[in-house]
């Protein structure tokens, strides 16, 4: 359900996986919106007894189902930004053998991956699974501002107001795709926006 098959793309574009159980003393699962379903898919009583779930609903309602898994710790946060101090605190305490699972939008997974990398986890050791919205987190190459949840191409930079086209070129460090002025060679000639994968 709500799994999207991303078209094959260039080498900088991240490839998301499918969550699977890996043995470890502690498990941190960050689930955004429909990402909760990916957690439900792999949950077992043994795993949940060692798992801290951080759930960011964004309009979905999986809280009761997730709670019913009786994880060792459960937190529901209203936004990624609100959950971030907690995520950092948990990662600070990370011991060898902590397993990190990220599931939800590309923007959330990319940002949370940076947090985990900042405490020394290699990005290849972090499990991911995309679920839910295919919207992108975009960096405007001109003003450097980040626009969240971009669904159409081209789109308007929420900082400088330029009309940007959506590239597949992706920076792990910014956890964002690159947006470039679409009418740079013909000012004012902005194509009608359409869905990124249309």
């Amino acid at each position, binding site marked *: 359900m709500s799994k999207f098959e991303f078209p094959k793309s260039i080498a900088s574009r991240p490839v998301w996986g499918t969550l699977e159980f890996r043995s470890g003393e502690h498990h941190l699962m960050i689930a955004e919106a429909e990402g909760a379903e990916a957690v439900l898919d792999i949950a077992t009583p043994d795993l949940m007894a060692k798992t801290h779930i951080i759930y960011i609903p964004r309009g979905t309602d999986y809280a009761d189902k997730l709670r019913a898994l009786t994880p060792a710790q459960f937190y529901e946060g209203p936004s990624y930004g609100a959950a971030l101090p907690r995520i950092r605190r948990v990662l600070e305490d990370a011991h060898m053998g902590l397993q990190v699972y990220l599931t939800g939008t590309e923007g959330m997974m990319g940002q949370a991956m940076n947090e985990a990398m900042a405490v020394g986890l290699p990005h290849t050791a972090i499990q991911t699974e995309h679920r839910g919205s295919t919207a992108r987190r975009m960096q405007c*190459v*001109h003003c450097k501002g980040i626009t969240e949840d971009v669904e159409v191409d081209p789109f308007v930079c929420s900082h400088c107001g330029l009309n940007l086209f959506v590239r597949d070129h992706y920076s792990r460090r910014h956890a964002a795709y690159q947006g470039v002025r679409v009418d740079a060679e013909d000012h004012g000639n902005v194509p009608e926006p359409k869905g990124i994968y249309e």
Partner: protein
Amino acid sequence: MTIQFNDESFRDDYTFRNSEWAIKRFPFPFHEDSYMYSVNMEQHRGGPEGSVYEKRFDVDEHYVSEMKDRAIVLDQDPLRCQSLPHMTLAGWDLLELIMVSKSEDYPDLFELHRNGNQWRWINKPLGIDHSFTFMDETTLPYGPMEYITRQAQGDYAVLDQRDDMLWMDAGMVTTQADWSLDFDIGMNFFEWHAPVPLAHEMGVFQRALKFLLNIQQGAPARRLNWTMTVNPLLDTSPENYSKWGIQKTTLTPENIGRKQHLRVELQTFFRLPRSNALVFPIRCYLCAFEDLMTVPKWGRRLHRVVRDLPVELATYKGFINNRPLMLEYLSQFDDGLPTSPGVWPDLETEPPLTK
């Protein structure tokens, strides 16, 4: 010879010009009448006297003005120069490499006096006479990479090597062919080249990486790359593309010879001794079409290369829309005669234009 440094601009009024000397030594990148990607690496161990390949770091008549242009770019956007925290040692390596090379290769322009870690650096063209302590950042006005690359033509990508991979972890990038250091910093070799069409499928990057990982100290390598730029604009950055992109639409049959430039990158690769990083200087040379046409062989060849280039490459290099106009101009300089092999102008042996 003593170099006469030009006072010229690479923006606004574009007073940049190449002297006859600079045209003849321009690194024309096509060794035959067609072009396709290749790894095309060779050892960087000098070259013909006076050529851009002769010295480790070529200094030419544009040096002083290019450094002024770099300072303008950095004032406007300091993010063009970045170095991740673990790359400072590589910055010192680079500073040493450039100071030693320039003082040995151009003793009339640059001097380096070393007494242990107490160094004195004299850069006559830029009027710098600076004593500092090697490996002590507090004795320099900038970090070591920034300090020395504000005094060296070309962009510099400093690549960390780990896990059999190269990582773009530091750089000074103000004269780039449309890529963003701020966006690409921290990426691996395949990731920062991701937007290049065709070459991945051809295995070019796999082979190039293998070659680069094995570059040894004292055995640098080099290759050429090229693109097209309207106006002699050094700062063709994606950051400022929103401003300069429109200039591509200003070509006319009357001004194309003057405005359209072939942009060639002399890319060199040096292993750095302490950090084991790889420094990748990307030196940009610009030459107006009308100046290139003064060399009959280059006129014939450029027409054939531009005409026969695959659409994907002309698109990626950003001149697909201007190609018809370019061909209209360049065809006047192609009389169909064969051309001699290799990149050199061969002015004495190649026939003059016969049309």
